[in-house]
């Protein structure tokens, strides 16, 4: 896996190769099952979980409905507190803004707190092109970066690696990026953590510029909130002189009080902790404490277009807890990379095709990366009906239709490669709407059942590759009913 999502194959192809990787399957199954069981216990402790979930969804929905107003209020508050706000309509604009800000400081190195938004826009690569090196400081992000790899999970970007693989990456690659791994490093978690700590400490002490994301932004006070488990983020947020935060516009909440709901929902749902160990909050700049300069880059990158879709907009409620990934049987088998985006799993399957559109083969395949089992909806702390949105986006793929792109209503054409399926679906519908035809077909099939092959050709091959067909019955139900009940019912009328 090399460090880019561009040119990824469609989901079924990427997922098929992942299912053949036994080590990956074992790593993922172990990790996701452990965390899902812990999460279930943590959630069960709160008798009012259902109400909290409802409140979380309601706050997000209300905020999204008046997003423009809250963002303006946020901008005013951040500015009043000594920060500067920049608006970025897409990834390119955001990358340009951040790069210019870094270059203006005269620095060529930045430390980073783990941030989904900067993964989404490919900030590290953009900085590198400008001669700036970005150091990831989250332990799992560090593993991904040293391994020249891609994140495969929202919360645990290196979930696809086990500790032996991590030890090898540290041994081989740490020296190139800074302080080398200690001699004879073992694969004990404590030793690995210590190696990362020593390596990172040097970065924290040297860094003059930091880049972060934020879990929440409070409109009324202009406060940014980052929650984390390791404390590395707090080092980034407090030690450097300049702090640049890139945050999706949907992360705003109206007031300080709203945090009460999310700071309960998020940790239990994501790490199964009652409270996350580190909650860092900052508001603009403060004399003699923390960064001297604070920049907030508000990222749109398809979010207002998503907001325009009345069914799909619920994806913007997401608080990135990753619970849906951990329960998803498809994610567990396909691995995070098959989704070809910073957002894997069920949320990725609905968010990515909305942020990027369904123009590429990969993006058009994502809404089908689900058996619609509903486990994701059941655990989602903000009640995003992921199956509903998946089906909605499937319709967009096969039928095309009206969408908002760059703020304008446009009619998109169906994605390529669905013409045969569309024809088959229409033919099937016609048959099903004519039960007489259906009956004739069933009778014919019943008479030919001796000819039933074990492996089907054509599209049916995808079924018989791994499963046997049920034997065709001699008599469909309809015929049995006519033969045994039909006449007496007719007579009884």
């Amino acid at each position, binding site marked *: 896996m090399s460090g880019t999502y561009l040119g990824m194959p469609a989901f079924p192809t990427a997922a*098929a190769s992942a299912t053949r990787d036994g080590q990956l399957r074992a790593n993922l199954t172990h990790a996701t099952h452990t965390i899902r069981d812990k999460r279930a216990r943590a959630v069960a402790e709160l008798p009012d979980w259902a109400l909290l979930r409802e409140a979380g969804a309601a706050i997000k929905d209300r905020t999204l409905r008046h997003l423009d107003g809250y963002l303006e209020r946020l901008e005013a508050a951040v500015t009043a507190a000594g920060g500067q706000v920049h608006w970025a309509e897409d990834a390119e604009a955001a990358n340009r803004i951040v790069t210019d800000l870094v270059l203006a400081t005269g620095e060529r190195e930045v430390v980073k707190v783990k941030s989904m938004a900067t993964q989404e826009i490919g900030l590290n690569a953009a900085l590198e092109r400008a001669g700036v090196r970005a150091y990831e400081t989250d332990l799992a992000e560090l593993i991904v970066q040293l391994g020249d790899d891609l994140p495969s999970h929202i919360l645990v970007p290196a979930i696809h690696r086990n500790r032996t693989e991590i030890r090898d990456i540290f041994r081989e690659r740490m020296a190139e990026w800074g302080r080398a791994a200690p001699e004879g490093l073992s694969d004990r978690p404590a030793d690995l953590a210590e190696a990362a700590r020593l390596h990172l400490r040097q970065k924290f002490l040297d860094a003059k510029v930091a880049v972060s994301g934020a879990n929440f932004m409070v409109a009324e006070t202009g406060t940014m909130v980052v929650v984390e488990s390791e404390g590395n983020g707090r080092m980034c947020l407090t030690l450097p002189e300049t702090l640049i935060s890139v945050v999706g516009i949907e992360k705003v909440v109206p007031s300080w009080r709203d945090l009460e709901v999310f700071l309960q929902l998020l940790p239990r749902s994501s790490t199964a902790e009652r409270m996350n160990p580190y909650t860092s909050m900052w508001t603009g700049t403060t004399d003699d404490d923390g960064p001297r300069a604070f920049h907030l880059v508000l990222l749109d990158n398809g979010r207002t277009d998503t907001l325009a879709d009345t069914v799909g907009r619920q994806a913007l409620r997401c608080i990135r807890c990753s619970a849906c990934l951990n329960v998803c049987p498809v994610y567990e088998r396909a691995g995070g990379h098959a989704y070809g985006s910073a957002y894997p799993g069920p949320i990725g399957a609905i968010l990515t095709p909305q942020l990027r559109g369904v123009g590429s083969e990969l993006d058009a395949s994502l809404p089908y990366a689900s058996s619609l089992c509903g486990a994701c909806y059941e655990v989602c702390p903000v009640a995003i009906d992921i199956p509903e949105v998946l089906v909605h986006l*499937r319709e967009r793929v096969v039928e095309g239709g009206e969408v908002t792109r760059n703020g304008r209503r446009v009619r998109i054409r169906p994605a390529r490669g669905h013409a045969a399926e569309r024809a088959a*679906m229409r033919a099937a519908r016609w048959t099903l709407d004519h039960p007489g035809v259906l009956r004739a077909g069933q009778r014919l099939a019943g008479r030919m059942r001796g000819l039933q092959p074990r492996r089907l050709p054509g599209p049916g091959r995808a079924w018989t590759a791994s499963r*046997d067909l*049920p034997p065709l019955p001699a008599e469909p*139900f309809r015929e049995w009913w006519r033969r045994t009940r039909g006449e007496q019912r007719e007579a009884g009328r």
Partner: protein
Amino acid sequence: MRVALFVTCVNDTLFPRTGQAVVTLLERLGVTVDFPEEQSCCGQAQFNTGYRRETEPLVRRFARAFHGYDHIVTPSGSCAAMVRDNYPRIGARASAEGRDRGLASVAASVVPRTYELTEFLVDVLGVTDVGAYYPHAVTYHPTCHGLRMLGLGERPRRLLSAVRGLDLVDLPGAEECCGFGGTFAMKNEAVSAAMGADKARHIEGTGAAAVCTVDNSCQMHIGGTLSRLGSSVRPVHLAEILASTEDEQW
């Protein structure tokens, strides 16, 4: 009480024994069952694949076929969920988009009358012991739509527990999807097969002679996987177990 059987296209074409079991069972419980021949398919496969508008005539047909019945009973959790959860959405969109203004109320009219079999038995008829006899070790796989969309809860297990001779064995990882998912089974064959193989391994591990579901489509996937793996565990629909008696082994 006028009760109509919605047999579903999968039952009708591939698993007629299930439909026959439902009729036999309900008649044994004193219910007069009708089978409106005008019925066809709930449209689930089309809808879930993204062909919402293709399902609109099927929604109308469903409502017409089952007009006037107090209860519509179906031995399929996913088809019942399709009617209850998605018909209102389909109807509302068709009305809002001006294709079929009346479809919203037509679709809504069938929702409160549509029951999955175990709901009908437990909630409407108020029975959990249907007098069945099935002397085998059985494990139960709760299908996703029955479990999460309909919220069938303990109903199927309560019915199974009351069957004489039946030894109900716990299934590890029971609530995990078997990997069927309609067209998902074809579009993402590799992942679907991997999920199916894990489900089959868990089923085999129980030592049960049969694996029971409330949905023939999941049963087709589980059964096809077990068969390909050379397993002797038999997939069976709950209705067929409930229809079995000492006199007539289903």
